[in-house]
């Protein structure tokens, strides 16, 4: 073993006066940081070195490390610190880190949590994940290679996610003979780039993770460097938790605490500012105001609570307040809106579908949101803005998005907790994207609902009927239009006021600008849903006949309607049967390749899981089917 003994020796106080030692260490603070570098920049080695130097490696681990180093290490007979950090079996074999791993170590002044994230191109999402909770980013550069494409990408991502403290660690200085000139050259290169993407400030230091230079203290090999060693800098840099306290008070409500009728508390993590009993607060989005009476904890009431604490508040007045609401300083509350511009980082294998409804979770609010076609995508290597129709895995773009109701927010730049969101796929439940709100679109604030005197109940009352949407879905040629037409005729005979919206007909007018890509199909259904909704407001029984192949969009239309008004009718005809009928000759065209994106052939059909009505067209005639549907609607 040629490595130096750890510089951070176990403090003598531990052995001499443990209580004094503990009293001292109870007041440590916590810094979370992220290390970013390319595959060979020595990232894992640096983290291994930090753990080793701060005495976080035990004898048994060290013995295992020495044995592993000889067996699979890449440093010959020397200790391969990277092996300490590369966790999962699959990765150890491949010799790369493939996911986010968290490591812990501590010094006299601070405890540290390091997110170790991979430098591999396909794993942008991992870096964004690791960076999202970090106060500081260490950007590693191999001194022999200088600023690389990956360096630029990592810096861009760290800046994008709002990390204020950037450390440029020029690593492997031992391999360039600790050259001052080489260090200056790299720093100058980096400075030019950093300024171009808006990084105002960074701290550069020459290090060697392998040899230990400028890690815990000044290195004799770099007498020309007078700045702090890496550990010193990590121990003293300002924490986000401290700067968050200067902002106006905000607390998203997680849970309402009601042990009995006499107590009603609101629990949450304070996102910004401070609060004390007597403070005037406002609950958003309702805008109701009250005064804080108590800050309740198991260990007794607090006189004050600050950003970063989980607390339970009680109010002087019985005002409505529940999960998803935000408690804020009464005279400086955040805004609510339903249309935004945002940066979106796409994290799923399946590409983003503009117009598709996703769950959006921001703070403790979960709503339905749709994203428009991106305004542009950012090439994370060159920072160029590119035109884009969608966002694929690891793509970053800027787009407008709309939520189905107002959400309380602040621009991400001002408040990460009220401006950062995730998107969740409604079918797979996967987290598909992370996003950052820039601002609310003006139109969202200026368009208001106009209250009308004659309401939907009145419209329906005149017609003496209950409005409904009979939503037919099924493959092309399944018999939707035929059966829908029969249903409308039967209802007309019963003096019901109906309207049939047919897929082909709508595409001649309202939707003639739309094609058959997934995004256009989604927009097609959204528009038809909106029209159907207006018609139910007018009191009509609406019958729609659209393939409407995706479950998400059918569910979106369902959620637009009043409960019970949406009746999903699955015209269930097997593909082989529909193709055999081929009334319009479309299957033949699709099979021969003349027609692209044809449902059932090269575009999927997602059958309803539990439709209100299912029609098996191999067992019923169209007339029998229509009778069955009418009987369900009007018992």
């Amino acid at each position, binding site marked *: 073993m040629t490595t130096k003994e750890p510089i951070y020796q*176990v403090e003598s106080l*531990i052995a001499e006066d*443990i*209580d004094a*030692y*503990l009293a001292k260490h*109870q007041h*440590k*603070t*916590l810094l979370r940081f992220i290390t970013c570098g390319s595959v060979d920049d020595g990232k894992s080695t640096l983290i291994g070195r930090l753990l080793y130097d701060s005495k976080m490696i035990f*004898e*048994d*681990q060290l013995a*295992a490390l020495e044995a592993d180093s000889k067996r699979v290490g890449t440093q010959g007979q020397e200790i391969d610190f990277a092996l300490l950090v590369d*966790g*999962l*079996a699959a990765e*150890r074999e491949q010799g790369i880190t493939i996911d986010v*791993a*968290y*490591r*812990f170590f*501590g010094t006299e002044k*601070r*405890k540290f*949590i390091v997110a170790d994230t991979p430098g591999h191109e396909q794993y942008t999402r*991992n870096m*964004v*994940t690791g960076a*999202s*909770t970090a106060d500081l980013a260490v950007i590693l550069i191999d001194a022999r290679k200088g600023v690389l494409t990956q360096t630029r990408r990592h810096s861009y991502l760290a800046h994008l996610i709002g990390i204020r403290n950037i450390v440029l660690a020029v690593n492997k200085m031992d391999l360039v003979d600790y050259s001052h000139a080489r260090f200056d050259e790299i720093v100058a290169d980096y400075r030019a780039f950093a300024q171009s993407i808006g990084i105002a400030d960074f701290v550069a230091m020459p290090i060697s993770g392998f040899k230990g230079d400028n890690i815990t203290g000044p290195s004799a090999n770099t007498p020309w460097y007078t700045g702090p060693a890496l550990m010193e800098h990590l121990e003293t840099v300002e*924490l986000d*938790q*401290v700067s968050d*306290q*200067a902002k106006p008070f905000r607390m998203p409500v*997680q*849970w309402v*605490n*009601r042990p009995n009728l006499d*107590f009603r508390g609101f*629990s*949450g*993590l304070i996102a910004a500012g401070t609060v004390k009993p007597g403070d005037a607060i406002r609950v958003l989005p309702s805008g109701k105001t009250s005064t804080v009476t108590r800050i309740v*904890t198991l260990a007794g009431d607090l006189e004050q609570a*600050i950003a*970063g*604490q*989980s607390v*339970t508040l009680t109010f002087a007045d019985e005002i409505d307040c529940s*999960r998803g609401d935000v408690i804020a300083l009464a005279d400086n509350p955040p805004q609510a809106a339903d249309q935004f511009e945002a940066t979106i980082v796409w994290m799923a294998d399946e590409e983003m579908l503009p117009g598709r409804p996703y769950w959006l*979770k*921001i703070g*403790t609010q979960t709503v339905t949101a749709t994203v428009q076609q991106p305004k542009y995508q950012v090439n994370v290597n060159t920072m160029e803005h590119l035109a884009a129709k969608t966002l694929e895995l690891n793509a970053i773009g800027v787009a407008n998005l709309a939520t189905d109701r107002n959400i309380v927010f602040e621009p991400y730049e001002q408040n990460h*907790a009220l401006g*950062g969101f*995730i998107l*969740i796929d409604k079918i797979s439940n996967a*987290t598909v994207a*992370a996003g950052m709100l820039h601002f609310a679109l003006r139109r969202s604030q200026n368009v208001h609902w106009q209250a009308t005197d004659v309401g939907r109940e009145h419209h329906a009352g005149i017609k003496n009927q209950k409005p409904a949407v009979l939503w037919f879905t099924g493959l092309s040629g399944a018999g939707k239009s035929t059966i829908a037409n029969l249903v409308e005729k039967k209802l007309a005979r019963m003096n019901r006021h109906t309207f049939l919206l047919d897929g082909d007909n709508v595409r001649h007018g309202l939707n003639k600008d739309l094609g058959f890509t997934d995004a256009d199909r989604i927009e097609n259904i959204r528009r038809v849903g909106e029209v159907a909704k207006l018609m139910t407001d007018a009191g009509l029984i609406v019958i729609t006949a659209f393939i409407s192949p995706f479950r998400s969009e059918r569910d979106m239309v369902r959620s637009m309607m009043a409960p019970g008004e949406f009746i999903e009718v699955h015209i269930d005809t097997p593909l082989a049967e529909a193709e055999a009928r081929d009334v319009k000759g479309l299957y033949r065209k699709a099979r021969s390749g003349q027609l692209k994106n044809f449902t059932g052939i090269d575009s999927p059909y997602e059958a309803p899981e539990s439709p209100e009505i299912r029609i098996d067209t191999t067992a019923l005639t169209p007339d029998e089917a229509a009778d069955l549907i009418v009987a369900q609607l009007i018992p």
Partner: protein
Amino acid sequence: MTSTLTHLERLEAESIHIMREVVAEAEKPVMLYSVGKDSAVMLHLARKAFYPSPPPFPLLHVDTTWKFQAMYELRDRMARESGMELLVYQNPEARARGINPFDHGALHTDMWKTEGLKQALDLHGFDAAFGGARRDEEKSRAKERIFSFRTASHGWDPKNQRPEIWNLYNARKTKGESIRVFPISNWTELDIWQYIQLNDVPIVPLYFAAPRPTVERDGMLLMVDDDRFPLKPGEVPVERSIRFRTLGCYPLTGAVESTASTLSEVIQETLLTTTSERQGRAIDKDAGGAGMEVKKQQGYF
């Protein structure tokens, strides 16, 4: 005036936030309670998170019948004090077959703990289970999410984990899937000890040194906790001053010789020690370096 939260205050706030998210979003949560020091801290945090209400979920102890007597005593006391329902589950098949750590080796852990846990979760239909695992314990834990998804058959897929960005946890799942939630993921062993000291968290007395009857086997010091311990011919229990750094089934848990009888002394010993915490437990040594990762894929916590 600004003030800085200490690392323990921030860890506490994070853990409480996680627990409240689960209670707000899961249908039927449960807290797995193993009676060790990590469980003790997790339970204390739960009581803080929901005070003045009791934590709105039960405690589940997946029992092997081979825990230390002192653990059963503390378990019952803590359930009473917290006002929470205590569910104890013992795998009936393991009981019927008389599975024990002396005769059955790895099968003991598999049947009582891994299978027992799956059975208990299925039996009650829990969709979210809090566990007291920490990322600093073991390499594969370091990469596990705080909200860790399990398939209907309780499998873990390390390559297909949901990204966790900021503190926005996605607790949505389809029927049959469940979540294991680790609210103290970011705590280290030292954090746990410091927190126990600062908050007077009750822990099993076995963590403190006392004279106890022991035998030495395969380099491990085992405590003879009851008369089910089969002594080999000529083996006589020797009284030694010992304590435990982790607690599990008494025949599988190695003690260390120690005189640390107060919390301060225990922490002192922890800081001065030169071997890692799980070293006293046989489970990590199975299947080479990847032992825990393989166990987790099979459904072990």
